[in-house]
C-alpha cells in the first residue's frame, strides 16, 4: 500500500516539474525577444535625423528626435526597459534551475509590472505624437509635418513596432510568472 502510494507521487512529479521547466524556459526566451525589441526601438528612434534640402519660410528645415520631448521620453524609457531586461535575464535563468523560488519570482513580477507601465507610457505617448505628425489637427491648427519630413516620419513610425511588441511580451511574462507562482 505504502509503496504504491509513493510510486503514484513520483510518477506525477516529473510531469509537473517538466511543465515548470518549460514555463521558465519560455520566460527566458520571451525576455530576450523583448530585449531585442526595445533595443531596436531605442536605436531606430535615437538615430533619426533629416535635413531638408530646400529652405521654406514657415517650417524649419531640420528634424531630429530630440526636437519633440515626447520622442525623447520614448528613447529614454526604451533604454531603461532594455537595460532592465538584460539584467533580469540571469535571474530568469536561475528560475529554470531552482523552480521553488517564491520571493525572487515576486520581486521579478514587481519590477516587470513597473517596466510594463513605463514602456506602455513611452510607446503610447510617442504613438500619439506620430499620429499627430501624420494627420495634423484641424482645430488646433497643427500642421502635419510628415508632408515635408517623410523619411523622418517613416523612421519614427517604424520604431514604435518594437516597443509595442515588447509591451505585449512583458504582459505575457507577468502572466507566466503568476501561473508559475500559483502552481508551485
Amino acid at each position, binding site marked *: 500500500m505504502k509503496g504504491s502510494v509513493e510510486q503514484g507521487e513520483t510518477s506525477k512529479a516529473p510531469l509537473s516539474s517538466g511543465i515548470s521547466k518549460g514555463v521558465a524556459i519560455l520566460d527566458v526566451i520571451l525576455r530576450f525577444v523583448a530585449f531585442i525589441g526595445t533595443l531596436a526601438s531605442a536605436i531606430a528612434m535615437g538615430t533619426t535625423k533629416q535635413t531638408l534640402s530646400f529652405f521654406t519660410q*514657415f*517650417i*524649419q528645415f*531640420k*528634424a531630429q528626435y530630440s*526636437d*519633440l*520631448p*515626447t520622442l525623447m521620453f520614448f528613447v529614454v524609457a526604451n533604454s531603461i526597459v532594455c537595460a532592465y531586461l538584460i539584467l533580469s535575464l540571469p535571474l530568469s535563468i536561475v528560475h529554470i534551475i531552482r523552480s521553488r523560488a*517564491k520571493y525572487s*519570482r*515576486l520581486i521579478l*513580477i*514587481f519590477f516587470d*509590472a*513597473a517596466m*510594463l*507601465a513605463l514602456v*506602455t*507610457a*513611452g*510607446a*503610447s*505617448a*510617442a*504613438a*500619439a*505624437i506620430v*499620429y*499627430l*505628425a501624420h494627420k495634423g*489637427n*484641424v*482645430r*488646433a*491648427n*497643427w*500642421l502635419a*509635418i510628415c508632408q515635408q519630413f517623410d523619411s523622418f516620419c517613416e523612421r519614427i513610425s517604424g520604431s514604435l513596432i518594437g516597443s509595442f511588441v515588447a*509591451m505585449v511580451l512583458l*504582459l505575457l511574462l*507577468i*502572466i507566466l*510568472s*503568476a*501561473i508559475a*507562482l*500559483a*502552481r*508551485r
Partner: protein
Amino acid sequence: MSTSQEAATVVLDIGAAGKAPATTSVAAPAPAPAAPASSQPRKSPGTFFFRRKDHGSRCVALLDFLLRIAAFGPTLAAAIATGTSDETLSVFTQFFQFRARFDDFPAFLFFMVANAITAGYLVLSLPFSAAVVLRPQTTGLRLLLLVCDLIMVALLAAAASAAAAMVDLAHNGNLRANWVAICMQFHGFCQRTSGSVVGSFISVLILMLLVIFGAFAIRKR
C-alpha cells in the same frame, strides 16, 4: 477521571479489533473534551474572519476589494470630465477655430473610452473580489482577476500617457513643428483635461498595487 483514562488507553491499544471496548470508550471521551473546552479562554469576535491558517490572504483580499473601490472614483471622474469638456471662445481670431471639444483630438477620445472601459471593469469585478474575500482558497478566480487587472493597467497607462502627450503639447507647443500652444486661448478645456490625466495616473498606480497584491496572495505555501 482514572476510568476515562483507562478507557482511552484501551481504545489506543486495541484499535478496531473489538466492538466491546469501543462502546465503553464512546461515553468516556465525551465528558473529557467538554472539560478542556470550558477551561479555554474566549477568543475576540474579530478572529473568526481572519484565521491564522489563511496566512493573511483574507486580509489581502479585503484590501484588494477596498482598492478596487478606490480606483473606480478617479477613473469615472476622468471619463466624465473629459467627456463634458467643450469650450467655445467668445472672440473669433484669424488663426484658431473658436471651439474645442474632446473628440477633435483622437488621443482624448481614446482616453475617455479607455477610462470608461476601466471604470466599468472595476465595477463588474467587485462581486468577484467579494467572492475571493469570502473564500480565500480560490486560486483560479484570483488568477483571472490578476490577468484582467494587468490588461487594464496596460490599457489605462497607454490612454493616460497618450493624453498626457497631447496635454503637454497643448501647454507648451513645439517650435520645430510650428505647433502653437492652444492652452493660451482655451483655459477651461486645458484645465479639465490636465486634471483628468492626473486622476487617471492615480488610478494606474492603484491598479498596479492591485496586481502586486494579487501576485503576493497567489503564491502557494
